[in-house]
C-alpha cells in the first residue's frame, strides 16, 4: 500500500515542479486576469494563457515532438504555416476596403507606419539580438498578430510566444499607448482639420480591388503570397456577394476554430525554459518601442503628405497605419472628436488602418526574403 502511494507521488508532476514553472503559472494567471476581467483581446489571450498553464505542468509532455497533443496543433498549424493564413482568410471576409478604395493615397500612411518597424529592427540589433530575432521583434510594431506569428515562426521560432503575446497585448492597449503619441506629434490646429466626405465606391470597384491587389503584391513580393492571397480571397468572398455561406464560414466558424488552436499553440511555446530569460523579457520592452515608433512614423508620414496635398488630411489618421483593425481607427476618431466635435474621422482612419494590414504583410515578406 505504501509502495503504491510512494509510486503515485513520484510519478506525479508535483515532484518535478520547478520555480520556473511557478513563475509561468503566475504569467498565465496575469494573462487570464487581463483576458477575463479586463477583456484585453480575450479571444486570444485566454487560450494563450491556458496554453502557458498546461505546458508548465510537469510530465504532461503536451509539447513533446511527435507525441504531445499541443505539439501537433503547433507543428501542423504554425510550423507548417496553416493557421496564420486561415486567420487572414477570415480577416479578409470581415474587412471593408471601401475607405481605402475611396481614398487610395491612404496606402502611403500604411507604408509610413512600417518605417517604424525598420527603426526597431535596427534598435534590436544594437541591443544584441541577431538579425532574425531583430526582424521578429520589429514586426510587433505592425500590430498584426497573425503576421507576427507567421514571420517569427520562420525566423526565430524560440521567440514565438514572447512576440505573439507582446503583439496582442499592445494591440489591446492601443487606446492607452497611441493617444499620448498622437497629441505629442500633432498640434491642436492639425487635430481640428475636418476631412470631406469619402466618395462612394461601386460594387465592381470593391470586387476588383482584392483581385488587383493580390496579383500586384504577389508579383512584386512572392513571399507575401500565403497571407495576402488568403486575405484577398476572404475579401472577394465578402464583396462578390454570391458566396455568403463561405464568407460567413470564413469570418465566423473557421476563424473561431483556428483562433482556438492558434492561441493554445502560441501559449504552449512559452515554457519556463524558453521564456524566462532576460533576453526574452526585453522583447516586451522592444515591442512597445516598435509600436510607439510605428505610430509616430505614421503620424509624421501624414504631416509630410500634407505639405503636398491641396485638400489637407487630418494627420491623426496616420496613426491608424499600424494595422490593429479597428481599434487604431476608433482611437483616431476619439482623439479627433475631442479636438473638434464636428470631426468624424472613423471612416477616414479605416483607410490607413486596412492599408496597415497590407503594409505589415509586405514588410514581413520583405524581411523574410532578406533573412529567411
Amino acid at each position: 500500500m505504501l509502495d503504491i502511494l510512494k509510486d503515485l507521488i513520484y510519478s506525479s508532476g508535483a515532484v518535478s515542479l520547478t520555480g520556473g514553472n511557478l513563475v509561468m503559472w503566475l504569467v498565465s494567471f496575469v494573462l487570464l486576469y487581463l483576458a477575463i476581467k479586463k477583456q484585453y483581446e480575450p479571444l486570444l489571450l485566454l487560450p494563450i494563457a491556458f496554453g502557458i498553464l498546461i505546458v508548465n505542468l510537469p510530465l504532461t509532455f503536451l509539447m513533446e515532438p511527435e507525441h504531445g497533443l499541443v505539439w501537433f496543433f503547433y507543428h501542423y498549424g504554425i510550423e507548417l504555416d496553416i493557421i496564420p493564413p486561415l486567420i487572414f482568410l477570415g480577416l479578409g471576409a470581415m474587412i471593408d476596403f471601401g475607405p481605402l478604395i475611396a481614398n487610395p493615397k491612404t496606402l502611403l500612411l500604411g507604408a509610413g507606419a512600417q518605417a517604424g518597424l525598420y527603426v526597431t529592427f535596427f534598435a534590436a540589433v544594437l541591443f544584441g539580438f541577431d538579425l532574425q530575432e531583430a526582424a521578429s521583434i520589429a514586426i510587433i510594431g505592425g500590430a498584426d498578430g497573425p503576421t507576427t506569428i507567421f514571420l517569427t515562426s520562420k525566423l526565430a521560432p524560440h521567440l514565438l510566444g514572447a512576440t505573439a503575446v507582446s503583439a496582442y497585448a499592445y494591440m489591446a492597449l492601443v487606446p492607452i499607448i497611441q493617444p499620448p503619441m498622437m497629441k505629442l506629434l500633432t498640434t491642436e490646429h492639425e487635430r481640428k482639420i475636418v476631412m470631406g466626405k469619402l466618395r462612394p465606391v461601386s460594387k465592381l470597384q470593391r470586387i476588383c480591388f482584392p483581385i488587383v491587389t493580390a496579383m500586384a503584391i504577389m508579383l512584386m513580393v512572392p513571399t507575401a503570397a500565403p497571407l495576402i492571397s488568403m486575405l484577398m480571397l476572404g475579401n472577394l468572398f465578402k464583396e462578390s456577394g454570391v458566396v455568403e455561406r463561405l464568407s460567413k464560414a470564413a469570418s465566423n466558424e473557421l476563424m473561431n476554430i483556428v483562433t482556438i488552436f492558434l492561441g493554445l499553440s502560441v501559449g504552449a511555446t512559452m515554457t519556463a525554459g524558453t521564456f524566462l530569460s532576460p533576453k526574452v523579457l526585453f522583447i516586451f520592452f522592444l515591442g512597445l518601442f516598435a509600436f510607439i515608433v510605428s505610430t509616430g512614423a505614421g503620424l509624421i508620414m501624414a504631416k509630410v503628405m500634407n505639405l503636398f496635398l491641396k485638400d489637407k488630411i487630418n494627420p491623426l489618421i496616420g496613426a491608424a497605419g499600424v494595422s490593429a483593425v479597428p481599434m487604431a481607427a476608433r482611437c483616431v476618431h476619439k482623439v479627433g472628436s475631442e479636438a473638434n466635435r464636428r470631426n468624424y474621422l472613423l471612416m477616414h482612419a479605416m483607410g490607413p488602418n486596412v492599408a496597415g494590414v497590407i503594409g505589415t504583410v509586405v514588410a514581413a515578406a520583405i524581411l523574410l526574403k532578406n533573412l529567411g
Partner: protein
Amino acid sequence: METDWSKVMEVFTTGIIGVFVVMILLQILTQLSTRVIDFVENLGKGEGSSPEPKSPTAPSKD
C-alpha cells in the same frame, strides 16, 4: 557572434524602400482601376438612359 552591419543596412534600406515602392505602385493601380471602372460605369449609364417621359402627375407651374 559578430554583427554583419552591411547586412543590417541592406535589410534596413531595402525594407523601407521596398515597402514604399510596393504601396505606391498599389496606390497607382487602385487609382487607375477605380477610374477605369468609373469611366465604364458612367458610359453604361449614359448609354442606358433615355429622356424621361413627363409624368402626368408631376406638378406644373401653370
